[in-house]
């Protein structure tokens, strides 16, 4: 604990130079603008900034990416409140009460609440990032091939279950992602799979062009599909966050922070689920639940605390397991590897200072959003007045550059186009993107570890189910699949009722 605090203090001290603070300011501002613009998501923003930071030192590049990520998730609430369009998928829940408040002439108040929730959520998540990453990293050191195999299956199944509203389609998307990751040379024998003699395809599908396509190009097509844009609300009251909100709704803030962080830790689930889960939990226990959806301060606070707490939460598995907690975290993971930082179970052994550097970066980003939330709201709102007919072609130009710049291959531009079209069709058919992306990230982990596990056990499947961590993961996977069936839910309910009755009979 004390060692962690010392490392954290050293990270803060190292970052207290004018150039670093300038980068924090610029990256957070850029993230905020990216998040505020419908059509530019946090994933897209982090992917584009990865391109721009290629020539920077690893620490500085990761600082810029984290500030952009935090800024974008916060910035998405601007368009949710003023346009009733979530700037990023994470801010969809904020539309309900945020826009309702804006229509009542309280847009400034809504933005102040959003700032309070975002700052508190990020701070709560940040504390867990500092506390849980070393613990999870230590636990992950006990992982073998069997556990890593189940971790990949767990990620895809749980992500498919929780994102979107149709688990079967979520799992299909996730397994399609896992298959895409097997295209190209396999990691054990370097045998070319499904490359059809194409040299570019033999190198495999790169994550960043695929993500830029699925989240950037697909979003351009989705935004351009609608013939009519929505008018923005331009007049608003004071935007300064109120301390009273924190004092009155402290329970909601802590609960939403915990839910958001937990949702972030689960692989591939992401900020949108963190936000909706926090909102639903707040509504379930609120004394003023009738106001939810009609301009509830508590509802907006819960949604915004939940999605921002998810950001540090999603970085916990990135650092400890090299598994992303959300789509932007997947890009962050890829960016870390590009910059020569190898996250994973060994990070606390090889580079413990890096974890606390990330915590310090998160703190700086939080200060950045608080600053912009108080002082720069009105100029930033001007961004929302730019017509989408002008913004979208520029977004697509950035998609093209973002896919090309990392490896400088035209093939990556074609990959972006293909994934954009696939992503658009999948969205129209109600297939969630998060498990698809997570599948692409986890496919290699699943492939290598299933085969390694089989070699270690000489084809015996028992260790996949009997080792303690594997058994827990299998139980969670089976449970989360079975809970989608009404008969299984009914059986669980009646079992719990019988158990409760038995306890009652014994007077327990």
């Amino acid at each position: 604990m004390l060692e962690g605090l010392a490392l954290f203090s050293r990270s803060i001290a190292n970052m207290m130079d004018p150039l670093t603070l300038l980068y924090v300011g610029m990256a957070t501002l850029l993230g905020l603008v990216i998040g505020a613009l419908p059509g530019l998501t946090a994933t897209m923003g982090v992917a584009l900034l990865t391109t721009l930071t290629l020539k920077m030192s690893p620490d500085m590049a990761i600082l810029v990416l984290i500030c952009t990520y935090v800024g974008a998730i916060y910035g998405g609430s601007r368009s949710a409140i003023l346009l009733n369009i979530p700037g990023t998928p994470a801010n969809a829940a904020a539309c309900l009460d945020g826009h309702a408040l804006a229509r009542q002439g309280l847009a400034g108040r809504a933005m102040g609440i959003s700032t309070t929730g975002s700052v508190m959520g990020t701070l709560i998540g940040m504390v867990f990032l500092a506390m849980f990453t070393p613990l999870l990293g230590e636990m992950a050191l006990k992982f073998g091939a069997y556990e890593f195999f189940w971790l990949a299956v767990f990620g895809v199944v749980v992500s498919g279950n929780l994102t979107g509203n149709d688990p079967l389609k979520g799992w299909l998307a996730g397994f399609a992602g896992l298959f895409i990751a097997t295209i190209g040379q396999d990691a054990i024998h370097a045998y070319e799979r499904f490359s059809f003699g194409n040299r570019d395809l033999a190198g495999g599908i790169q994550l960043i062009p695929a993500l830029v396509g699925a989240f950037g190009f697909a979003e351009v097509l989705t935004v351009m599909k609608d013939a009519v844009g929505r008018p923005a609300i331009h007049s608003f009251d004071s935007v300064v966050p109120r301390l009273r909100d924190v004092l009155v709704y402290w329970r909601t803030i802590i609960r939403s922070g915990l839910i958001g962080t937990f949702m972030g830790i689960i692989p591939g689930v992401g900020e949108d689920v963190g936000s909706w889960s926090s909102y639903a939990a707040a509504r379930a226990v609120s004394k003023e639940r009738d106001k939810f959806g009609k301009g509830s301060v508590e509802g907006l606070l819960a949604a915004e605390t939940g999605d921002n707490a998810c950001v540090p939460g999603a970085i916990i598995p990135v650092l400890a397991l090299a598994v992303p907690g959300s789509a932007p975290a997947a890009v962050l993971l890829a960016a870390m590897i590009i910059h020569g930082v190898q996250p994973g179970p060994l990070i606390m052994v090889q580079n413990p200072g890096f974890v606390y550097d990330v915590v310090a970066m998160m703190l700086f980003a939080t200060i950045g959003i608080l600053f912009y939330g108080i002082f720069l709201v009105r100029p930033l709102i001007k961004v929302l007045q730019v017509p989408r007919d002008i913004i979208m072609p520029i977004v697509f130009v950035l998609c093209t550059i973002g896919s090309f710049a990392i490896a400088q291959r035209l093939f990556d531009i074609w990959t972006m186009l293909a994934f954009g079209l696939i992503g658009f069709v999948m969205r129209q058919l109600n297939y969630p993107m998060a498990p698809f992306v997570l599948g692409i990230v986890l496919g290699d982990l699943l492939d290598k570890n299933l085969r390694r596990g089989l070699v270690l056990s000489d084809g015996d499947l028992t260790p996949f189910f009997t080792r303690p961590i594997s058994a827990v993961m299998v139980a969670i996977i089976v449970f989360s699949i079975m809970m989608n069936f009404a008969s299984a839910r009914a059986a669980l309910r009646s079992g719990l009722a019988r158990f409760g009755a038995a306890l009652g009979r014994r007077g327990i």
Partner: protein
Amino acid sequence: MDERPSATADLLSAVFWMFFGGAIVYGAWTMDRLEYMNINPYTVPGLVPGILGVCIAFMGALLLIRAVRAGAPKLGDIVAERPGRRVEIVRVLVAAGLCLVYAAGFVGHGLPFWLVTAGFVTAFIFVFQFPARRADDTLLRGLFVALLCGAATAAAVTLVFQEIFLVRLP
């Protein structure tokens, strides 16, 4: 999502997944097993794709059963059209067409990136603002705005990426 897809759309996607899963299984089964290298049989390259193909085909079959139970195929799903649907399809096709022509047709094929980018942004803005500009009788002004945005984007992108951040452009 604005609306949930129809049972018929689910049926069609289920058929796709079943074929896709089947094709993966076939590809995995016929993949070289590298016996001449004396590799461990549990590490054959087609093992994992084969298992994934089976899972995808199985889930596709579940989706098919669900869609049939929901009443697919329904002629009404195919024939009935929501108002504005045709406009949406045209807008998506135009946007996708412009983006594909720019990124796959022009970028990296000899023309300077700034020129291609300026042309793309100008064309995109002008095409999508065309109906409103024609109705307002401001076509010439619209063209000027589009040209200005195209030139500004090309200049800004080249300056920021190539000159400041030293990123090589296509």
